[in-house]
């Protein structure tokens, strides 16, 4: 096999894995949108906040340290202990569930039955609020997230594939972290699908998404389901936060990855879990391949920044419901 062809394959593989990370963020959007019709602008910030919280808890940081010091004139920053990864993840999950409850109790419970645009605006407010809380709670410095995920390229893959090409081919370069992210994403998606298809709560979630009155009449508590959905979105945000945080450090620009989820959702449709996955993969592979085949040789590179959005624009024009979204039918 020619080296060029093999490089092409490597580009596709790397694109697939980048796509997995996009899909992870998009998944959080889909969950909330399906169950409550809310387009949650805060999803990216939730990923950031959960990563901040995880990093903070692990290093034994005192939450709201600056605030406490400013008020009481103290000078405390750390508890002086380190929390093991697993315990810290569980604690972070607890924080995300509390956050979900607060969101439902103090914001969306009062907005039931409002126009989608109002709910959307509420989530924008929520995003900036949460960003501020994250800053106040854990400080604004960049943190490393050392949860013990492997870093760097996989030598094993490189060795195993180096024989495929000629002398100038050194084997596929695959990031180990991307491989872990892929496996985690597969488990997460399988879990979410099993949950929504086979459990009573999952069925209730689909029911609430469909018709509030009918859901109430069969004994489903809307508030409970909404807290559950926001908690699940919090879980997905945490997983995305860990993966992105381990890749590029926990910093406030992390919340911008939410923007990358938008083209993914345009492609996959806002209402489909498999759509979010496939959409993420298409965007991931598409932008890497476009850069490799057309962008770098002919357009001067850096096409990865805009390719996804152009693709999304095309979809908006020709297939606005996405690949897998529910068809938009207006009955007259």
């Amino acid at each position, binding site marked *: 096999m020619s080296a060029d062809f093999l490089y092409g394959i490597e580009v596709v593989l790397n694109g697939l894995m980048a796509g997995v990370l996009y899909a992870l963020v998009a998944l959080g959007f889909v969950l909330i949108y399906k169950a409550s019709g809310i387009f949650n602008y805060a999803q990216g910030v939730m990923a950031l906040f959960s990563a901040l919280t995880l990093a903070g808890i692990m290093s034994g940081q005192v939450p709201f340290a600056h605030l406490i010091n400013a008020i009481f004139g103290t000078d405390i920053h750390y508890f002086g202990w380190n929390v093991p990864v697993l315990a810290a993840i569980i604690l972070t999950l607890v924080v995300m569930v509390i956050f979900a409850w607060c969101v439902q109790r103090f914001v969306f419970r009062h907005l039931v039955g409002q126009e989608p645009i109002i709910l959307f605006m509420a989530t924008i407010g929520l995003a900036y609020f949460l960003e501020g809380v994250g800053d106040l709670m854990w400080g604004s410095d960049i943190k490393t997230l050392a949860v013990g995920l492997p870093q760097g390229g996989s030598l094993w893959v490189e060795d195993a594939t180096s024989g495929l090409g000629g002398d100038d081919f050194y084997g596929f370069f695959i990031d180990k972290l991307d491989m872990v992210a892929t496996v985690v994403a597969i488990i997460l998606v399988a879990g979410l699908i099993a*949950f929504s298809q086979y459990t009573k709560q999952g069925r209730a979630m689909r029911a609430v998404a469909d*018709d509030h*009155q009918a859901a109430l009449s069969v004994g489903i508590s809307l508030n409970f389901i909404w807290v559950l959905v926001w908690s699940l979105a919090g879980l997905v945000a945490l997983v995305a936060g860990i993966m992105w945080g381990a890749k590029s450090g926990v910093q406030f620009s992390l919340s911008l990855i939410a923007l990358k989820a938008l083209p993914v959702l345009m492609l996959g449709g806002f209402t489909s879990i498999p759509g979010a996955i496939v959409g993420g993969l298409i965007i991931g592979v598409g932008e890497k391949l476009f850069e490799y085949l057309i962008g770098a040789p002919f357009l001067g590179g850096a096409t990865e920044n805009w390719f996804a959005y152009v693709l999304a624009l095309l979809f908006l024009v020709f297939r606005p419901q996405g690949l897998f979204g529910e068809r938009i039918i207006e009955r007259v």
Partner: protein
Amino acid sequence: MTADATPYVTEDGRQIGGVMMDLRDITLRFGGVEAIKSISFDIREGEIRAIIGPNGAGKSSMLNVISGFYKPQEGEVHFRGKKRPPMRPYQVARQGVARTFQNIALFEGMSVLDNIMTGRMGHIKSNMLAQAIWAGKAQREENENREAVERIIDFLEIQAIRKTPVGRLPYGLKKRVELARALAAEPDLLLLDEPMAGMNVEEKEDMSRFILDVNDEFGTTIALIEHDMGVVMDLSDRVVVMDYGRKIGDGTPDEVRNNQEVIDAYLGVAHD
């Protein structure tokens, strides 16, 4: 409250028991409008109780009070001999009160089978994780619930459409699926809001037969709202008549039919 609540057996051999639900001086206001004005009546175990009245009489509001969708400003709801505290609709549903809606409230995107399965919500006890991984007990439970749902599907003769998404069904069948979902909960009290509205004669006959069969075979107590007087008179054991939020009649179909106030409300009366 009720003068005579001794159990008896109807002509066609159905058991009518004591008072199951007792509504006392219910008043419901929307702003300045009184939709229900101090109405009292009861529903007895095993009977078919009809609520009739002209449009805007407050019948649906009454049903919404019973099922917890509306909270009356005054009055008490007694269920099984106990005063019911203010409850949310889902809590009422969990107490064994199922209902259908005048304008059909189904999960349009889900299949007929899934729709009816949601009615079994209260009958699933195993935990979330066990259900997700399809563990032994959860699977047994799921199978039992499926069997119960299949029985109802057979009963209502909707076998052919069990996999069809509800959104694609015609109106009459949707009404039937909604009834199926309510029945799946195995309710003690079934509330039907105009189960035959918009149906042709044949569909109405089918629906009447189902309602009678449900009452007869499962012993389910039924309270229903209906416009078609013929249907009401054939189906029900006792009838409440409402007009402009007031109760103007209460009794057996024959008693109600001969009540002058009811006749006036339905046929109009000359004002001179």
